[in-house]
């Protein structure tokens, strides 16, 4: 449940997701004004604590916080100086003493945001932890699909790529199934988690079958630097089998949309023409990311402990 932060989509109820999306659509209107800033979080402090570098997500949270008039501080300890669990928690306690109103955490190890949340009075927002979850990415993907399709219920969503090592995939599987979509996953066997069906999805070895009748096709980023050679024989083979291009996209519905969490490896997950397609759904995802993160910060930042039960 929302309240003590946003750590995982798995913890959310459908109503929580609906409230976040509804708030995000209103926040998007703020971003279209001439003065793209409202005084809601004036005097509040948000710390972006990124142990793993990510310019895109960090910038998106930073802009979101600033549009709500919060003071946003970026804290990016170099990963080499902070590998021991102890020093992470020390860092967390130090930050807590500075009295932030929300802390946004990214770490390469699953579960670190939760550990930090247990130490802090402030709500913690998970901005990606290892192969566990990336909740704001899944929520902005939901938002983008609602914009494009008008609903989530009853849609068929196909996620392609390294399902086993992708926090984006995990969060999206929870998010789309909770909202009533049929989720399919496809990828090389080495990239498919054991018993993936227990997450409520259908898994496919054949991309063609996975795409048949899909409304939404989501290509995951292949972490070339980390995985090449380990989980599939070659990038060229992956691209030939699971890379999306116009020809393969024909198996999906005519009005299917193509999504990607970015940054795209052109010619690997997506062909060049799909990656450059206009109007670009992929850039809408980026745009919606700011509005969605504004919504999450609005709903969470500055909540004092014990103040959750109040009703307007």
């Amino acid at each position, binding site marked *: 449940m929302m309240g003590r932060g946003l750590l995982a989509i798995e913890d959310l109820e459908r109503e929580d997701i609906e409230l976040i999306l509804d708030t995000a659509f209103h926040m998007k209107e703020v971003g279209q004004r001439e003065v793209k800033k409202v005084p*809601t979080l004036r005097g509040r402090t948000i710390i972006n604590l990124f142990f793993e570098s990510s310019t895109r997500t960090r910038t998106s949270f930073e802009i979101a916080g600033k549009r709500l008039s919060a003071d946003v501080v970026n804290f990016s300890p170099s990963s080499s100086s902070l590998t021991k669990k102890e020093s992470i928690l020390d860092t967390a306690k130090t930050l807590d003493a500075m009295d932030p109103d929300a802390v946004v955490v990214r770490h390469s190890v699953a579960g670190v945001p939760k550990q930090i949340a247990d130490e802090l009075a402030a709500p913690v927002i998970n901005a990606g932890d290892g192969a566990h979850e990336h909740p704001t990415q899944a929520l902005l993907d939901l938002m983008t699909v609602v914009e494009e399709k008008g609903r989530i219920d009853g849609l068929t969503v196909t996620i392609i790529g390294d399902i086993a090592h992708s926090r984006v995939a995990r969060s999206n599987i929870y998010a789309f199934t909770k909202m009533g979509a049929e989720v399919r996953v496809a990828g090389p066997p080495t990239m498919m988690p054991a018993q993936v069906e227990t997450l409520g999805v259908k898994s496919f070895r054949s991309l063609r079958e996975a795409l048949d009748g899909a409304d939404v096709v989501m290509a995951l980023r292949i972490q070339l630097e980390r995985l090449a050679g380990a989980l599939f024989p070659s990038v060229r083979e992956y691209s030939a089998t699971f890379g999306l291009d116009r020809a393969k996209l024909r198996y999906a519905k005519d009005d299917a949309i193509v999504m990607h969490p970015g940054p795209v490896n052109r010619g690997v997950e997506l062909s060049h023409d799909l990656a450059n397609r206009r109007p670009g759904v992929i850039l809408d995802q980026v745009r919606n990311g700011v509005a969605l993160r504004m919504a999450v910060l*609005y709903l969470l930042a500055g*909540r004092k402990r014990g103040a959750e039960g*109040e*009703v307007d």
Partner: protein
Amino acid sequence: MASDQPAKNRPEPSAPPAPPSAGVVLDDVAIQRALMRIAHEIVERNEELARLYLVGIPNGGVPLARQIAQNLREIAGVDVTVGVLDTTLYRDDRLTRGIRPRLRRTEMPSAVDDRLVILVDDVASTGRTIRAAMDALMDFGRPRAVQVVALVDRGHRELPIKIDYVGKNIPTQRTDHVELRERAGGEGMEVVLMQGRGAPS
């Protein structure tokens, strides 16, 4: 709206039972009459009607602003721009109470620069909503002037804010709750006062 409804419907014996001490303080006929009088006052007090811009504060202010715009069309033949402005993100008293009110829609169809903006609210009290609406408005541009309509003014002002056009002054206790709502069956609107049901806003 529902002014053609026979008056025998009031006090509405078939309506769902109201809370114990709830009373209708303005019925639909009185509301329509007040909105027509306010439209006349707006015409009387302002010269450049073409520059008018009515802005309803959700939720109650929005249907009221639309009705006033329609009245202005009838009596003065002017087409007035109508906008919707949510004040939630500009409130100063919500976050500190640990609650997150749902946001409501904002739709400002044209620029407010150099326009005569009339904010329309259903129930005015502390003045904090109007203050928030003025702050929000300034982020959309620089109006030539800002005036305020309130269907009901219940007093208890906490800020130096003056309502230019008042439908009706209704003396209340701070703990009373006053709201504009649709009448049961969706036929028109009414303002009800519930004693001891909430703080002024």
